């Protein structure tokens, strides 16, 4: 591996930017995610930033069981994140639809809508568990660990054709 490649991988390990999507969540997980930014947990130490635009993000954090009205938006936002990207499913809802399973307004779980790399179960998960899940996502992003389907994140970003709406 060349020096440049290892520099890129180190940079990805040290500077993961998050974008958070609420796909019909009850706000419990969202509050726990924001708690990670507070003085007690302070994820900015790890270079993590909660970004305001999906175009800036490396890691997409999705909470909620994916309702009918948010499914298309989740797909658009996923397509708007430039490669390489990793998806973290935050809480029990995107993993299993939780108590909303079977509801006619729910089209989840999340992995039916977009590919998911890390699940952080819990209702809501503790901030420690969220940071653990994001650390796993960082390892996938930097190429230290394979994705669940066994593929590795390449150092040179692949070009995706589905770019989402402008």
């Amino acid at each position, binding site marked *: 591996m060349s020096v440049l490649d290892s520099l890129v991988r180190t940079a990805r390990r040290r500077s993961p930017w998050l974008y958070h999507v609420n796909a019909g969540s009850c706000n419990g997980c969202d509050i726990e995610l924001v708690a990670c930014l507070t003085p007690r947990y302070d994820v900015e130490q790890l270079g993590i930033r909660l970004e305001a635009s999906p*175009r800036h993000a490396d890691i997409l954090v999705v909470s909620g069981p994916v309702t009918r009205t948010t499914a298309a938006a989740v797909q658009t936002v996923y397509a708007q994140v430039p*490669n390489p990207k990793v998806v973290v499913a935050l809480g029990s809802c995107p993993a299993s639809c939780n108590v909303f399973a079977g509801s006619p307004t729910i089209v989840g779980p999340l992995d039916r809508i977009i590919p998911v790399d890390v699940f952080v179960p819990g209702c809501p998960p503790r901030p420690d568990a969220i940071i653990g899940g994001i650390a796993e996502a960082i390892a996938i992003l930097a190429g230290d660990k394979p994705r669940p389907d066994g593929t590795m994140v390449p150092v040179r970003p692949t070009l995706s054709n589905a770019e989402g709406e402008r």
Partner: protein
Amino acid sequence: MVVRGLVSLLIFPGALFAVPMGWFMVWLQRRLNARLQGRIGPPFYQPFFDFIKLLAKERVTRSRLQGLVLTALPVLAVGATLGVLALLPVFPEHAKFSGDLVLLVGLIEVIPLAAVLAGFASRSLYGGLGATREALLGLMYNLPFLAALGALSVGAGSFSLSEIALKPMWAVRIPALIALALCIPVKLHMNPFSIANAEQEIYAGATTEYGGPRLAIWELAHDMEWVAVTGLWASLAFPVPHVALVVRLLVFVAISLALVVLLSIVGAATARLKLAQAARVFWQWGFGIGLIAFIIAVLAR
């Protein structure tokens, strides 16, 4: 002359100095902000790795013309910032050319102009909103900014930055520096004037649609703008002739970093203002102080 121009553009206070210094200043600001909030904050190398990571991300496919425009605008901002840096009168004994104040004012206006155009060119609603706010803020802070620079220029009787930086004229300089200091946080998108980028409120403002390498160029322009804007203030705040170059350099860096500390404290202690409140700050207080400086300069001539 050409060699000296290239040195000030590419080495000091240009790219070779300004890029690491800009990263350091941005880190210092983030770190101080975190410490003031009771957090630990990002490590020393953070802005550098942010930049490398963005460079190594996918470049979002655009139609050819839009891609060209969206790439050219941040490059223009980087170029204009380098121009401002090269014109800074850090060593005012070595005069560059007369009239460089006019060129500096022109170049320093190009940076927000590029951001405004980029916001609209991205055709995103939030990019457009950020661009509108950026343009309105430009109307606001340029009044005290230009009044203060005009007062200094009248006081020194010259359009040359070197003469402005060397002539003491404290009665003009102190109000002018206060008016200039008021414009620094808005130029750097810091609280309480972080209205144009307004994180979360209007997504990411003008750079909402920017990602990957194109965003990296914006970040670079913004990092260097920190050095350029604080450096302009620092180089105008030390009008003492016949000082050794090393001392002058150290004073320049010290005043710049002190400004970064002050900006961080003000930024952490204040909340974002509304556009109308910002207008009142700049048109009432900023322009008032700038006008006082101007009148003193005219009377003292």
